[in-house]
């Protein structure tokens, strides 16, 4: 049984909040009215959760540079785009879908287009076995909302980030994945969220709730991408609870269309001896912001929060990570590597917090960026906040250009300069990608990195 936490306050931890408002209203009444009645609106606590979230959005507006968590990432372009709710989009052309989709072989695929669940494009996921349930989020909210009462909005509080508040205020569809105690699901689940604006910019807010009871094991891959067209705003959120000894492999790939906005958040609670093993790959999108908060709540809970990003053109990528060690002997490992070309900007903000009674904690964080030319900018803000006295915590950050010695070494073996650069960039990212423990997911990410690199202009720009 999972502890009931809706009534019990979580251990108090200072969180990054949206902070001071900057004047602009987020998703004004026009948008809120157009959304209409959402699933679960009749259930008072669900309705209240949405209302609270929208009230936060209304009160604080879209955060600007005065908000610490948004110091390096401007949302002006989001604020200035007149989005409509994606459920109103009816002119989506899916013909190019098979060309861009990073499908995971052998996975149970659950497909969303503009946030709308598409059973016709998804694999059959009923009858996966005793103790395994995948259910459309809207169905759960309409038929059995109280089954989510101890999870939804508990581990991802609307007030903890703008991204969370926006998702929670407008959440409509998504998926609920539940594994009963000691159930081990071999087959990976792939949640596929596709953006396709058609003729009008649209916004969607898919919500994924993942609960693994004690001793359960699953692999969930979230793949976010899109089709060319008008800019869309993808605002997904994943709220995850891992019971004692549970293991979740959770890999996110974000390769949205180059005009798209992606503001996504993951919030995870890891109980005693449980393990959260994750990776974020960010390769696409005009503006990508991935937030992750991991709470290591129980003794010896462990998390790996790795990632890789590749930026070209005018892309902007921002990874915001908070890892909270709240119990003794908890372990976290984080390595994030980024490759930047063109006129791009990469941001990594990583905070490790160690509570007073989280003794014998081990936390490691490393961010490495590789600049392919003089255009990109990298902002890295590591923070260690330690209140226990017996801990091992380390963090490091490096930003540099490609080593001419490495290029020469490869060229001295007959490999031309462009190919040498490609090998080195791929190697730089693969160094962290290879740590993905699940083999099919690892292969998928390796392939996505290779495909991204095949865009030759990324490499030749570096020669100027």
């Amino acid at each position: 049984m999972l502890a009931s936490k809706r009534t019990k306050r979580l251990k108090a931890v200072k969180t990054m909040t949206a902070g001071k408002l900057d004047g602009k209203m987020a998703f004004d009444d026009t948008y809120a009215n157009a959304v209409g009645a959402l699933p679960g609106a009749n259930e008072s606590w669900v309705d209240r959760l949405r209302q609270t979230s929208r009230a936060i959005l209304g009160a604080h507006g879209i955060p600007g540079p005065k908000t610490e968590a948004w110091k390096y990432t401007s949302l002006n372009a989001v604020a200035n785009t007149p989005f409509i709710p994606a459920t109103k989009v009816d002119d989506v052309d899916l013909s190019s879908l098979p060309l861009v989709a990073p499908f995971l072989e052998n996975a149970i695929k659950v497909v969303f287009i503009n946030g709308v669940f598409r059973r016709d494009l998804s694999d059959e996921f009923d009858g996966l076995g005793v103790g395994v349930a995948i259910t459309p989020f809207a169905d759960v909210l309409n038929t059995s909302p109280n089954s989510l009462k101890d999870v939804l909005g508990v581990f991802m509080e609307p007030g903890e980030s703008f991204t969370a508040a926006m998702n929670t205020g407008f959440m409509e569809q998504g998926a609920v994945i539940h594994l009963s105690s000691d159930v081990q699901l071999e087959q990976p689940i792939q949640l596929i969220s596709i953006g396709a604006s058609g003729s009008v910019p649209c916004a969607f807010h898919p919500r994924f709730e993942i609960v693994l009871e004690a001793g359960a094991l699953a692999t969930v891959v979230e793949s976010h991408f899109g089709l060319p067209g008008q800019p869309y705003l993808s605002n997904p959120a994943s709220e995850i609870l891992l019971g004692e000894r549970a293991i979740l492999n959770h890999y996110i790939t974000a390769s949205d269309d180059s005009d798209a906005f992606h503001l996504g958040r993951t919030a995870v609670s890891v109980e005693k001896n449980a393990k959260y093993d994750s990776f974020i790959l960010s390769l696409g999108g005009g503006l990508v912001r991935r937030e992750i908060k991991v709470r290591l709540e129980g003794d010896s809970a462990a998390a790996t929060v790795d990632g890789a990003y590749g930026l070209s053109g005018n892309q902007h990528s921002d990874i915001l990570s908070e890892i909270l060690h709240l119990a003794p002997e908890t372990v976290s490992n984080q390595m994030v590597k980024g490759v930047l070309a063109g006129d791009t900007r990469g941001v990594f903000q990583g905070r490790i917090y160690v509570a007073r009674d989280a003794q014998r904690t081990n936390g490691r964080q490393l961010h490495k960026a590789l600049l392919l030319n003089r255009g990109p900018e990298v902002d890295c803000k590591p923070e260690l906040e330690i209140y226990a006295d017996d801990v091992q915590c380390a963090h490091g950050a490096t930003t540099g250009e490609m080593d001419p010695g490495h290029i020469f070494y490869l060229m001295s073996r007959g490999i031309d300069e462009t190919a040498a650069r490609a090998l080195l960039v791929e190697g730089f990212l693969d160094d962290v990608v290879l740590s993905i423990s699940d083999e099919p997911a690892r292969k998928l990410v390796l392939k996505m990195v290779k495909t991204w690199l095949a865009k030759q202009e990324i490499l030749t720009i570096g020669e100027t």
Partner: protein
Amino acid sequence: MAFIEIKNLHVSVDGKEILKGINLAMNGGEVHAIMGPNGTGKSTLSYVLAGRDGYEVTQGTVLFDGKSLLEMEADERARAGVFLAFQYPMEIPGVATSTFLKAALNAKRREQGLAEIDAIEFLNLIKSKTKDLEIPYEMIKRPLNVGFSGGEKKRAEVLQMSLLDPRFAVLDETDSGLDIDALKVVSSGVNALRSPDRTFLIITHYQRLLSYIVPDYVHVLVGGRIVESGDKSLAELLEAEGYARFEENEAA
């Protein structure tokens, strides 16, 4: 004309002249050794021949099979048959040794108008070559040189050389960091590659390596010039007497 002709080669690094007029002619199949004290320009010579940036040739020429080597990029030289075994092979995280070997081999094959090597053929080739050099086959799955011991790195260099089948191989301090067993393995690997079609230039501080790879000619490089040339007995003489005699002359 000799297969490789270095004529009056002057090279500066950061405005400082390191090589001050090297003259050296090597025929096909010959093994030449260059010996000299530290800081005398031995590694500079190896990098200039391989085409590394940052070395300014102020005078002189290098002809390789009649072509001007210095006008070629490093990768062109490699595909034409020049190979440098590095004193300190680079560690390249994330790039599997096998991926790298295949890329290098295919670059050469494309130059020769051959198709890319078949995956199975490649594996068989690597298996037989790693066995000859007593390299654990698992090593080629690891990132290039990362975490390799000194001996493993040098064996990997010889593996690359064997795979790329160069016509002119420069070995820069290949004996440094090797224990006696590794030295024997590496040397026998090099000796196996000796052929009438391949010329070696072996750069070393110590005579030790030359007991295993016996050169046809030995040259003494001091102060950026070749001050004496002879046969293998010169190496033994240097081992016994050191470089002091030449350095005194240089100073005078």
